[in-house]
């Protein structure tokens, strides 16, 4: 596999060195408390503070938002976020808490926001001071996102919002929400408009956030109810009735297929953060007895572990090949597979780990005899969040078939 720094531009090489130097002294120590698998399951203020402090310090050092323009609080660099991400991963830093802000709200704001709004909102978003959430899904609108019903009624220079959003990750900590609203009931796609709306400052004044509990027992997503919330027209992104086009920018970035590389860190080993990857699977198979022998010696399990390793390596190599235009058949073909493959491969790997663990797969977090601290059942269940959220795997296959293979649209 590749050593990516061998192809750095001079700017990237210098920046990489800066990242390494800074990370060497500033990678935070592991917390004494447990961190969840991802930012989407942050439950306590203590966890949030630790992660927000980390994002802020990485931002101050120029490792977050490096490719955003300076006037919006970015680093004004070119193609450097990927470098920062690689170095943060290598340094095993904690993850960023404001992942919806960084991954979705920021690129959407940058592409479609008015000047004043970008100057006002982006710096605090990039630093993590403001946590963002995404209000797209509703009880009646999931895969068929363009059917959303939450309504914005014109009222002079403002809009009055009423409706019900659901599965809204991080809403309980959020200062702001990107939201897809209906401004016209006579047209489906053309009746949508896109806004940013305040959440924490409007709690009890038109906004109610109610936590929902996941199958894993964790919180992290919510219902958000809007009752006569007034919103200024200046908070609209893109034209009236252009909401769907703006949402496309959000969704592309959400699925790792957008233009801007999302600031992303991680890699920290923590008792409670456990990647459903083959390195961990092999580790488990070495420690586990299966049919009276180490599982790693069982011929059928060996074959299946290798299947996972091959798929995982193939996905890594896809990401590398996506950067070599001469080896692509279609410009978006690999990017559009990313989210689908990442989530499905992790799901298969975790499922296999449960089989390797055998009877011990019944033991969950907190049981002292559980292999890997009971992380595998949690990791396995968590992967369903990823095959459902951000466009289900089925919807991803529709998109791939329709956009890349030009097959007839399913709607």
């Amino acid at each position, binding site marked *: *596999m*590749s*050593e*990516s720094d*061998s*192809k750095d531009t001079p700017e990237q090489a210098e920046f990489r060195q800066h990242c390494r130097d800074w990370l060497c002294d500033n990678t935070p120590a592991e917390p004494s408390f447990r961190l969840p698998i991802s930012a989407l399951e942050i439950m306590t203020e203590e966890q949030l503070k630790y992660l927000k402090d980390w994002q802020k310090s990485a931002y101050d050092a120029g490792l977050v938002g490096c490719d955003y323009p300076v006037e919006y609080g970015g680093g004004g660099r070119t193609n450097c976020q990927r470098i920062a991400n690689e170095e943060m991963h290598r340094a095993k830093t904690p993850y960023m808490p404001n992942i919806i802000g960084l991954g979705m709200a920021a690129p959407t704001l940058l592409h479609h926001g008015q000047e004043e709004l970008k100057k006002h909102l982006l710096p605090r978003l990039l630093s993590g001071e403001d946590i963002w959430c995404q209000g797209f899904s509703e009880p009646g609108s999931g895969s068929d996102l363009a059917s959303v019903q939450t309504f914005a009624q014109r009222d002079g220079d403002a809009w009055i919002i009423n409706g019900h959003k659901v599965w809204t990750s991080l809403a309980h900590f959020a200062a702001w929400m990107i939201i897809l609203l209906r401004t016209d009931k006579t047209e489906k796609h053309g009746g949508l408009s896109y806004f940013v709306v305040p959440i924490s400052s409007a709690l009890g004044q038109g906004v109610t956030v109610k936590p929902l509990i996941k199958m894993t027992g964790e919180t992290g997503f919510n219902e958000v109810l809007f009752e006569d919330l007034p919103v200024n027209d200046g908070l609209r992104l893109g034209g009236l009735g252009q909401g769907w086009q703006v949402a496309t920018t959000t969704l592309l970035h959400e699925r790792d297929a957008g233009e801007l590389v999302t600031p992303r860190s991680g890699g920290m080993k923590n008792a409670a953060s456990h990647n459903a990857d083959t390195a961990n699977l*092999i580790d488990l*198979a070495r420690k586990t007895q299966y049919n009276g022998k180490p599982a*790693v*010696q069982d*011929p059928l399990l*060996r*074959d299946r*572990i*290798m*299947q996972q*390793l*091959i*798929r995982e*390596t*193939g*996905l890594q*190599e*896809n990401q*590398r*090949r996506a*950067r*070599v235009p*001469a*080896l692509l*058949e279609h410009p978006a*073909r*690999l990017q559009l*597979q990313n989210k*689908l*493959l990442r989530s499905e491969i992790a799901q298969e790997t975790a499922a296999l780990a449960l089989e390797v663990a055998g009877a011990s797969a019944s033991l969950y977090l907190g049981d002292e005899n559980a292999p890997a601290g009971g992380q595998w059942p949690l990791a396995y269940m968590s992967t369903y969040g990823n095959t459902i959220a951000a466009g289900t795997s*089925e919807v991803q*296959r*529709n998109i*791939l*078939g*329709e956009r*890349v*293979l*030009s*097959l*007839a*649209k*399913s709607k």
Partner: protein
Amino acid sequence: MAQPDDYGFSEEAALLKYSARKFFKSNFPTDKLQKMVADNPDSARVQISNWDKALWQQLLELGWTLLAVPESADGLGLPAVAVAGLVEEVGRAAFPCPLLATLNTTYVLAACGESANGALREIAEGTTATLALTNRAGSWQPEDTEVVASEGKLNGTAYFVQDAGKVDKFLVCARKGTGHSLYWVATDAPGITVHADAIVDLTRDQAHVDFADVEADQVCEDGLKALGQAFPAICTMLAADVIGAAEWQLQTTAEYARTRTQFDRPIGFFQAVKHPLVDVMIQIDEAKSLVYNAACAIDHEPKRAAEYAHMAKASASETAAFASSRSVQFHGGIGYTWECYVQLYFKRQKHSQMLWGDAAWHRGRLADIVLGKVS
């Protein structure tokens, strides 16, 4: 050694790849292939191995067989990624020719050291060749060869010899005393009998070859070492052929799904067609990414070349099977006919799937490397 991020896939490599694609598009469209190799549906026929020798001659003149020959033997010494890019296009065209066989032989000879320089020079001058080392059970371990060398003469039979009817020379792995050595011999040398196999694949030929007191030049003493060193390249190049052919299968089937209408809709509308086609695409992309990683490792990360080649061929074998299955199924009745071109690729892919090891075989070897052998 680390791999360059872009696989070292240079502009020159891209030019080679895309001019090959253009060349086949204008000179060897699929209807020409069908007319050439599928004129006789009689399954009892002995392989007649029709191929476009004149077109192959043009490719020889373009220097395609020189590409992998090291510069020290008057070749071009192109990196494996560039060669893989070309082979992918040969697979896409399913062009019957001894390129792959000659490349395989070249990689083995290049791993032999000085003693094989003469043979390499012959390849640089346009000689074509293939490997003769598989036993009757189809073992991919060359130490299982049934050919024996003693007093400079070869005796025994080599099986599953690829494109034997198209090449000038054999590179034979023969047991000699307690070791194994490699021998270079003309396919029409006295004592050699080539028995063409009747095979499913219409785009290649295959034979078992009898050696009876054949005088041959030894070009390598430690044959197993050279073969082991070249094995990643052999697997990777075949995998490159497979992904090219699979891309043809995908595009052809997607085209059919866009145009064939049933229940008032193009059949690609139905998710029972759409989603598996997407899965074919996903498998091709995985295999393709693994092929370029493996090819790059051959020149830049040789210590891991075997590991990556096992991944590439395992993935390509699965892709060959799945793309073939879906290409016939989604063409419906017409897909089951002799006249429909998907049959040509289906058969080539079933051949490639097992050749030089199927997916499970490669995963077994990969497991030995990654997890350690089972005690």
